[in-house]
């Protein structure tokens, strides 16, 4: 019965968050707690000649100073996260991956490979002393040639970022169906383009932070971390330090945004626990904003070289793409982003001949990890720019080219002929992409816009409209669990492995449980972000929590309900099938006025209750369910951006932004709308403002928000939202993920809109962000070209 699923139930977590009583890592204070500060490399690529820590160690109040030499052979380096990087055997057979081992020591040993890499750590009575002591550490470097351009890095004989990674190519693979090359040779229309997406920083409102508290008596350590993946942090600490995993408890308290980079385990999450045990004191480290922009993992940074063959009616016959991922100094996530790009690139389109080669290259920059969309925004920007370029070459409306190539509703479920990253066949389970496009076009009055565009052009105003669509594999496995129990007050306590960073887990999982159990969301207490209770857990990333943890919650709630009605049947003397649970009242269909509560059931289920339960019913009210999805489920969306471009300044005014999206069953419309709006805000940032810039020496030039531009509420329009609900066929709730979607399409939609606004100049925008200076440059170039043509 659906009573709460589908309702905009107010978020349970908001009271504490908006009254400032949330607890983030920085808020936690423990008796006798010391604080740590890291000394970071100012060099992109250099040999460490000498480190002098003597003065720092002498400073009163300093408890420990560690450098790479102190942990050599003691702390294992952080390696690829196997839970994300493992290539299933059938995928390996299809893409023939070549992988070279790479890692990062938690403190640089012998050489540094990126600016911001931890070189030393100081632990002192407080942050002030630790910062002063860090100042006293002298490091002598001998510069090596930094590798900044991935194409340069791949050249034979180039200096190596990691000595064992030949030609700095950490991984490469090749995926091919049909015969793209042959089709190109036979086609009259072939388009070639280079499409680039910049390196980004994720900028959560809360920076990273770690506290560790070692207990000598039990040999246990409690670690609090602003992480998306408490279980991965636990496993990595155990791996790096060689500790018993069950002696490590990782808690993610309130976490203020993650977006991906808080899902990669960082060196600080290993070192702080290590030092806590060594000193037998609690130790805290909170990242400052400068450190965040320099040292927190970054993302994106792909260059695509595409060759596309198409018909004169706009039908795409083949697409070939060779793309390079600049992963920075380490690649921890294997083929995650690159293969996401490869298997998402065709999106809602049918392209029978498809050939994609990917190389993941190491350079002397901060290491990359997945970030909201994880390889999909890059794919969609490439694909939808291709659609738009084809339309303009053929002088067709882009909508026509989209429709010409789109998978039709009657073709669902649609097999794209390749494999998903998890090894399952890439089959879109449900959706109606043409209907989404039509609904979005109606929302923006597309025809009306075209009329208005013509009128305004006469008045010298340049408005434009741009469209992007995507199909997104969401709800990636491998699994998520829920452990439910009832306590003496009759409350249901649900422990889940997926931990939130603001998504509203405490609310939506209570909604799901309430419907399955016949309770209200207030009767269910959701506990998340702790490795202490559930033996297994994954985390929150890849738009997966509602799908995986939501389904686990649903199934566990049904298991609990079965037990409750069995016991209620015994008490009430009826069959379990006759039992109804409504708003917490448990009664026989025949006699609603005589009801029990969960408290009554709890009392009767206790061990040694009188009279005893039949022996086949185990005492206690506790159930566990692990949900394992068959594969990802496919959410989809159409985005439309409307812009006005000032030709004189290159400034883009984003006037309207509209979305039609399908995330299957909507659990909480308010939360879904918030996710979409927030995702689009980040997408707009990457379209118009954001770019991590390194100079030719590998020095970061965007270390503050004066240089790394973020959109504010002033730049983000309220997005017009339209919904489709094509239920997922791959989980009991019919849900699809929605967390990342908003961020995927804005770069393509906005770039297409800008191109449309300047259609008479025939400019091509294949590089982000479309900053005023970059756009003004393109306009100037186009105007010059046109005037030369005219003068001839």
């Amino acid at each position, binding site marked *: 019965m659906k009573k709460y699923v589908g309702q905009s139930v107010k978020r349970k977590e908001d009271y504490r968050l908006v009254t400032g009583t949330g607890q983030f890592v920085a808020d936690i204070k423990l008796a006798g707690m010391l604080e740590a500060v890291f000394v970071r490399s*100012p060099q992109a690529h250099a040999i460490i000649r000498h480190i002098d820590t003597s003065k720092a160690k002498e400073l009163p109040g300093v408890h420990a100073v560690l450098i790479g030499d102190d942990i050599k052979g003691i702390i294992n380096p952080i390696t690829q996260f196997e839970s994300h990087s493992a290539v299933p055997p059938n995928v390996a057979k299809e893409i023939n991956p070549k992988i070279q081992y790479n890692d990062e020591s938690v403190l640089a040993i012998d050489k540094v490979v990126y600016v911001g890499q931890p070189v030393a750590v100081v632990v002192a009575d407080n942050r002030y002393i630790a910062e002063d002591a860090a100042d006293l550490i002298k490091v002598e470097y001998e510069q090596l040639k930094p590798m900044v351009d991935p194409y340069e890095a791949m050249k034979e004989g180039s200096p190596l970022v990691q000595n064992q990674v030949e030609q700095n190519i950490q991984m490469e693979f090749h995926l091919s169906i049909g015969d793209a090359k042959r089709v190109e040779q036979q086609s009259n229309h072939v388009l070639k383009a280079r499409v680039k997406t910049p390196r980004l920083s994720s900028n959560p409102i809360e920076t990273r932070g770690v506290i560790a508290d070692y207990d000598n008596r039990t040999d246990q350590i409690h670690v609090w971390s602003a992480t998306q993946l408490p279980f991965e942090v636990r496993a990595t600490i155990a791996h790096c330090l060689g500790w018993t995993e069950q002696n490590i408890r990782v808690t993610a308290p309130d976490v203020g945004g993650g977006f991906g980079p808080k899902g990669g385990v960082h060196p600080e999450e290993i070192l702080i626990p290590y030092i806590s045990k060594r000193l037998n004191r609690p130790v805290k480290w909170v990242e400052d904003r400068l450190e965040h922009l320099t040292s927190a993992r970054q993302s994106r940074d792909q260059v695509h070289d595409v060759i596309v063959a198409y018909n004169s009616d706009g039908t795409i016959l083949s697409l070939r793409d060779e793309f390079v991922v600049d992963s920075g100094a380490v690649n921890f996530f294997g083929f995650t982003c690159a293969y996401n790009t490869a298997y998402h690139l065709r999106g809602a389109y049918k392209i029978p001949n498809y050939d994609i080669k990917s190389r993941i290259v190491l350079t002397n920059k901060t290491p990359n990890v997945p970030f909201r969309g994880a390889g999909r925004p890059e794919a969609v920007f490439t694909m939808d720019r291709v659609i738009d370029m084809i339309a303009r070459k053929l002088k067709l409306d882009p909508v026509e080219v989209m429709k010409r190539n789109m998978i039709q509703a009657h073709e669902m479920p649609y097999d794209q002929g390749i494999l998903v990253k998890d090894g399952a066949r890439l089959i879109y389970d449900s959706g109606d992409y043409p209907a989404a496009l039509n609904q979005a076009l109606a929302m923006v009055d597309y025809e009306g816009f075209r009329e208005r565009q013509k009128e305004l052009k006469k008045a010298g105003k340049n408005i434009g409209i741009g469209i992007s669509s995507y199909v997104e594999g969401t709800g990636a496995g491998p699994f998520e669990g829920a452990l439910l129990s009832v306590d003496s007050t009759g409350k249901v306590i649900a422990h889940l492995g997926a931990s939130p960073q603001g998504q509203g887990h405490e609310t939506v999982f209570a909604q799901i449980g309430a419907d399955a159990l016949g309770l209200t969301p207030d009767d269910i207490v959701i506990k998340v972000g702790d490795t202490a209770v559930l033996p297994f857990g994954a985390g929150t990333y890849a738009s997966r929590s509602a799908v995986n943890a939501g389904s686990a919650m649903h199934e566990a709630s049904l298991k609990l309900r079965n037990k409750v009605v069995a016991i209620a049947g015994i008490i009430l003397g009826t069959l379990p099938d006759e039992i109804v649970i409504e708003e917490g009242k448990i009664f026989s269909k025949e006699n609603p006025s005589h009801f029990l509560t969960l408290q009554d059931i709890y009392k009767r289920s206790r061990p040694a209750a009188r009279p005893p339960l039949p022996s086949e019913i185990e005492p206690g009210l506790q159930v566990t369910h692990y949900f394992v999805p068959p594969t990802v489920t496919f959410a989809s969306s159409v985005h439309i951006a409307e812009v006005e471009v000032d030709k004189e300044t290159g400034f883009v005014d984003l006037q309207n932004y509209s979305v039609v999206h399908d995330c299957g069953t909507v659990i909480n419309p308010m939360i879904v709308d918030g996710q979409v709006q927030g995702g689009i805000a980040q997408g707009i940032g990457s379209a118009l403002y954001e770019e991590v810039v390194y100079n030719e020496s590998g020095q970061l030039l965007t270390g503050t928000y004066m240089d790394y531009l973020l959109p504010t509420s002033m730049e983000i329009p309220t997005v017009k939202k339209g919904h489709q609900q094509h239920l997922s066929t791959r989980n009991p709730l019919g849900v699809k993920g929605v967390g990342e979607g908003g961020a995927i399409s804005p770069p393509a939609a906005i770039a297409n809109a800008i191109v449309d606004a300047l259609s008479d100049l025939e400019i091509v925008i294949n590089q982000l962000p479309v900053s005023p200076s970059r756009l003004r440059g393109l306009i100037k170039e186009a105007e010059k070209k046109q005037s030369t043509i005219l003068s001839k």
Partner: protein
Amino acid sequence: MNINGTAKFNESVDTIWQALHTEEILVSAIPGCQSLILNDDVEYDVNLKLGVASVKGEYTGKVKIEDIEEPVHYKLYAAGSGKPGFVDATLECKIEPLEDGCQVIWTCEAEIGGTIASVGNRVIGGIAKFLAGNFFKDVKKQLLTRA
């Protein structure tokens, strides 16, 4: 980063050459200079306290003088580092006589790294030029008070 400039003086080439090689003058003229200690004939240990944008800190390093053609030309290599990052700079100075004094024509090539690059990149060129201007102004002032 490349910056350059010219500073004019009323004094003779020899006087300016002398001034630019006198420790006491340099210590007070170099912006933020805490100490300047001659190691051997051509190398100094230097300690600076400087703020660039919001990045304040102390730098220690070495200054080496080469290609000396007294009194008209020298090259100064400076390498320093501190918590805010590092600076490697080469300063080339030419001193030319003028009718009523002389001028110092200088060009500077500098590489900066670490926090000063990531935070100060936008403004560092301007600041460096400003600091260089101040340096020569201060030398001028000191020569006047000494005279």
